[in-house]
């Protein structure tokens, strides 16, 4: 029993280290898949499973079970845990007793505890029982980090927050840090594996593994990570699939508004001129739905409509065909926009009038960078009152297009009833009518990311005449239809709307996925397209986000690409380790190590031919040992020289003569020399020839390349 406890004590440290590493990779993986409670669950589950397996795999009853049985049981436990988790979240009683959020957290905890626990049990069992298992384990850890790393490539640079924020504020690519962690984890696991199997080979193999990981780091540093071609899973309009104007997806589907990544950065905007919106939000228009296609509004396919939009990216400067009017009520604003994910069209601060491509200051970070020139509105409500509608150069067809609505009388009826209560002096005013419609939606609409109208023929109608619960698409479509039913030319603008408060006084503004928006616009003859955006007073979701001021500032500075960015980085780095310098030192050290390795290798091969007879026995023998260890034949710990010579006699039969000559002088009378220089040289050459003849070709190639093979000769 005493011996037993001693054994478990000896195993405690490696077990803990391994458990921590595997649990760490679970934590990393779970970050992007679940909430905090799930991450904690997976961490604890993994730790628990590691200690459980390592302490009791060799005891009853586990030692009696076959590996397959243990794996099957683990699967069953996993399924059981998952069902328990789903039972927890789906049972009304629990949700009533506790808060719903607590129920959700408990469910996630149970789910991830079960997944991590059972998977770890399987991995650890395989690792303990089979030789492949340990490799699987290392692969798992490596995969965990690679998966997270590839998530970084998608621009989700904020995850895990701790690492992301820390690295970004210091100007380091977070993927590097994550890669270092991953390499470290894989290395430590591999080291653990080797310690447990054969502690004597550790230093050599650890060096080789370390070099591999280090060269990976160097590769990434020099060439960067491969960037994905397309990213279309974020944001409302983050789609670049094709140049055609047809809408690919139903905009009323919930998935289009999935809030799971609502904080994901989409773009950053740098304001070159002072501008503060009058209505509290910055609107960035990308495109518009203006033509009724029989079921709903869609991108127009007419050249004479929506001529104010910029519909493609070009390398040259591009100006809109139509300029907004009321220039005296607008201010010219130049903005620089850096897109973090790809978009179909450039978007610009309302109303964009020109687009100009800009050199990308950071290819890894920005998909596209460009300048837009906007005439941003500064008018107030009073200015909008009493205006005429429509543009004078619109043809009748265009007018009709902007007024077409679904064949549903209820739009007109509802709109008419809404404007019936207007004060007499505004009864004929277009803006007042529009405002009445907006006010109705503000008061009665309920904002929700879930809706029940997605698959109706007319989702907007179903929303407006149904539960009035929906999101911006529903509100803007409903409003647009009602505007049109009142004879007001209207369309749905698509883009981003960012609260002015997010800018926090700086010159840059971070657009996040949650800011994707659609809004109704109406056209006034002397002004242009004017946004009349319904803002429902009741909302079921919390749409506020962390504006991520430091990220906003960093990306803005990166985009602005001027000296202040470098200054900022410098100021962040001076107080801390200089990472590039450190890396350069490491490269240099690696290079020096390689050169020292090869230098020593060839020196030890060269020196016997140039030393005196007294030292021949030692130097010749050593040079031959080097050549043997290069092809993988080296003396094991505790093995005598004669045993070694006998062992390698299949490859180098003359080694036995060499050994006896060497030992005769090393252990016998050192003064008497048996061999002449000539004979030593002959013996060396013979053995080298024997190795060349008998060793495998692959090993010979490795022997030439390996700079540290001589470390093994002893």
């Amino acid at each position, binding site marked *: 029993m005493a011996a037993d406890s001693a054994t478990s004590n000896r195993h405690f440290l490696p077990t803990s280290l391994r458990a921590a590493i595997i649990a760490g990779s679970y934590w990393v993986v779970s970050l992007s898949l679940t909430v905090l409670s799930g991450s904690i669950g997976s961490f604890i589950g993994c730790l628990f499973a590691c200690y459980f397996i390592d302490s009791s795999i060799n005891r009853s009853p586990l030692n009696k079970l076959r590996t397959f049985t243990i794996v099957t049981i683990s699967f069953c436990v996993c399924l059981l845990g998952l069902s328990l988790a789903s039972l927890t979240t789906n049972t009304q009683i629990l949700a009533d007793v506790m808060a719903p959020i607590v129920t959700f957290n408990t469910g996630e905890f149970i789910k991830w505890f079960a997944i991590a626990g059972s998977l770890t049990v399987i991995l650890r069992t395989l690792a303990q029982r089979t030789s492949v298992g340990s490799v699987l384990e290392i692969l798992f850890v490596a995969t965990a980090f690679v998966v997270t790393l590839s998530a970084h490539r998608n621009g989700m640079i904020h995850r895990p927050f701790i690492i992301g924020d820390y690295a970004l504020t210091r100007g380091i690519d977070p993927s590097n840090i994550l890669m270092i962690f991953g390499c470290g984890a894989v290395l430590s696991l591999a080291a653990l594996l080797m310690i447990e199997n054969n502690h004597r080979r550790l230093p050599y193999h650890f060096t080789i593994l370390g070099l591999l990981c280090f060269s990976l780091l160097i590769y990434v540093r020099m060439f960067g990570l491969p960037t994905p071609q397309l990213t279309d899973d974020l944001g409302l309009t983050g789609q670049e699939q094709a140049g055609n104007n047809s809408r690919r997806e139903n905009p009323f589907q919930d998935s289009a508004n999935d809030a799971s990544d609502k904080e994901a950065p989409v773009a950053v905007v740098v304001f070159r001129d002072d501008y503060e919106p009058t209505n509290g939000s910055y609107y960035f228009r990308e495109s518009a739905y203006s033509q009724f296609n029989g079921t709903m509004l869609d991108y127009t396919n007419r050249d004479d409509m929506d001529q104010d939009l910029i519909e493609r990216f070009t390398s040259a400067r591009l100006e809109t065909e139509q300029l907004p009017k009321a220039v005296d009520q607008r201010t010219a604003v130049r903005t620089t926009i850096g897109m973090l994910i790809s978009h179909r069209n450039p978007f610009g601060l309302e109303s964009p009038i020109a687009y100009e491509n800009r050199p990308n200051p950071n290819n890894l970070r920005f998909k596209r960078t460009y300048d837009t020139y906007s005439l941003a509105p500064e008018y107030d409500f009073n200015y909008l009152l009493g205006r005429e509608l429509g543009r004078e150069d619109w043809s009748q067809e265009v007018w009709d297009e902007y007024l077409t609505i679904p064949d549903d009388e209820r739009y007109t009826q509802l709109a008419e009833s809404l404007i019936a209560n207007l004060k007499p002096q505004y009864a004929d005013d277009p803006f007042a009518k529009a405002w009445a419609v907006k006010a109705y939606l503000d008061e009665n609409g309920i904002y929700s990311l879930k809706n029940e109208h997605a698959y109706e023929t007319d989702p907007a109608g179903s929303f407006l005449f149904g539960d009035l619960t929906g999101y911006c698409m529903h509100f803007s479509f409903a409003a647009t239809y009602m505007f049109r039913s009142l004879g007001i030319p209207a369309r749905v603008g698509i883009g981003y709307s960012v609260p002015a408060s997010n800018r926090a006084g700086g010159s840059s503004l971070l657009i996040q996925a949650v800011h994707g928006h659609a809004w109704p616009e109406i056209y006034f003859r002397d002004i242009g397209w004017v946004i009349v955006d319904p803002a429902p007073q009741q909302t079921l979701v919390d749409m506020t986000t962390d504006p991520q001021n430091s990220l906003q500032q960093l990306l803005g500075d990166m985009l602005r690409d001027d000296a202040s960015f470098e200054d900022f980085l410098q100021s962040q780095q001076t107080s801390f380790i200089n990472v590039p310098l450190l890396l350069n030192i490491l490269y240099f050290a690696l290079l020096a190590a390689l050169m020292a390795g090869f230098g020593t290798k060839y020196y030890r091969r060269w020196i016997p031919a140039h030393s005196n007879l007294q030292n021949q026995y030692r130097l010749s*023998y050593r040079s031959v040992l080097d050549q043997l260890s290069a092809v993988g034949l080296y003396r094991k*710990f*505790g093995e*005598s020289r004669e045993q070694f010579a006998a062992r390698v006699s299949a490859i180098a039969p003359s080694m036995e003569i060499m050994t006896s000559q060497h*030992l005769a002088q*090393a252990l*016998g009378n050192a003064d008497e020399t048996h061999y002449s220089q000539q*004979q030593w040289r002959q013996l060396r050459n013979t053995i080298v*020839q024997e190795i060349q003849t008998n060793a495998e070709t692959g090993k010979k190639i490795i022997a030439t390349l390996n700079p540290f093979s001589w470390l093994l000769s*002893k």
Partner: protein
Amino acid sequence: MTPDSIAEVSELDQASDTQDISNNDLDVAISVLHKLINAVKQQVLGRDDVIELTVIALMADGHVLLEDFPGSGKTTLAKALGEAIVDSEHSTEAEGQNKPADYIRPFRRIQFTPDLLPSDVTGVPVFDSNSNDFHFRHGPLFAHVVLADEINRTSPKVQSAMLEAMGEKQVTVDNVTYKLDDLFFVIATQNPLDLVGTYPLPTPQLDRFLFKITMDHIDRESELDVLESYKERRDQVQQKITVSRDEVVSARQQIDDTVVISLAVKTALVDISRNLREDERVLQGNSTRSMVLMLPALQVAAALRGRNYVSAEDIELLLPRVLGHRVELAPGVAALDKVLADAMRAPMEQLARGTLS
């Protein structure tokens, strides 16, 4: 390998042979060793390792304890060894004062029983009525090779007399000390299983034996060989190989003078002993004397392999035989091999590495 390189190798072989032959003194000693071994091999089949160890012990001035079953060839071995050493006629004037040739026999066997008395072993003064005086009648210990059969069956009194002879090469009877022959060599045996009514040898007495050799049954082919050639050996068809006593004594001297034990080897021995003593599985480690006794044995083992230096091989060969009966393991620890291997690993590694520095 190219034909050229083969030629080179054979040249090298020849070269190394001639180098070795130049060392004449050692070569004579080596030939004596091989003669002795071959002489015993004629008589004892399938026990080459035991024969080799026994001859090493003989040349190293040590004694051997054999653990074996009855009828396994112990007596044959001892007898063959004893008979292979003959007295040389012309040696009397040089060192003959102490050992008149009449009472030193090549081989004696003593069967130890509980009622044996020390005088039965050493000899006894008897009264000669002719000369009216006592004169000493030499016991069976006055021989070159003495087989002490079942040494653990006799009383401690006889055992201690035996051990004085082994340790000091002399016997003392009635306060008169008689010198034994220089070549005095004891092969003692004991049966490892039949322990009822025995007086087991205590550790300090075991320490007098250089080797304890545990013999297993010989393999099938050898056993068949024994039966096949039984008649020839009984009728002594073959010409016996013999070595003179003086040759053996001078070979001993030559080996002692010629074979080098480097400091590294001695260091390894000391380190192994220290490791053993510190091992918690070992109750009592080996004595310093055991290491001292082992040095000549190492030299002989090296000479037997044609080397004039002691190497790791020799330690590996002899250490288990030297320490087997000297190290007392803690209760519950059975495998001496494993304990020994653990204790040897680091010192042997150091010995091997040391040759390159």
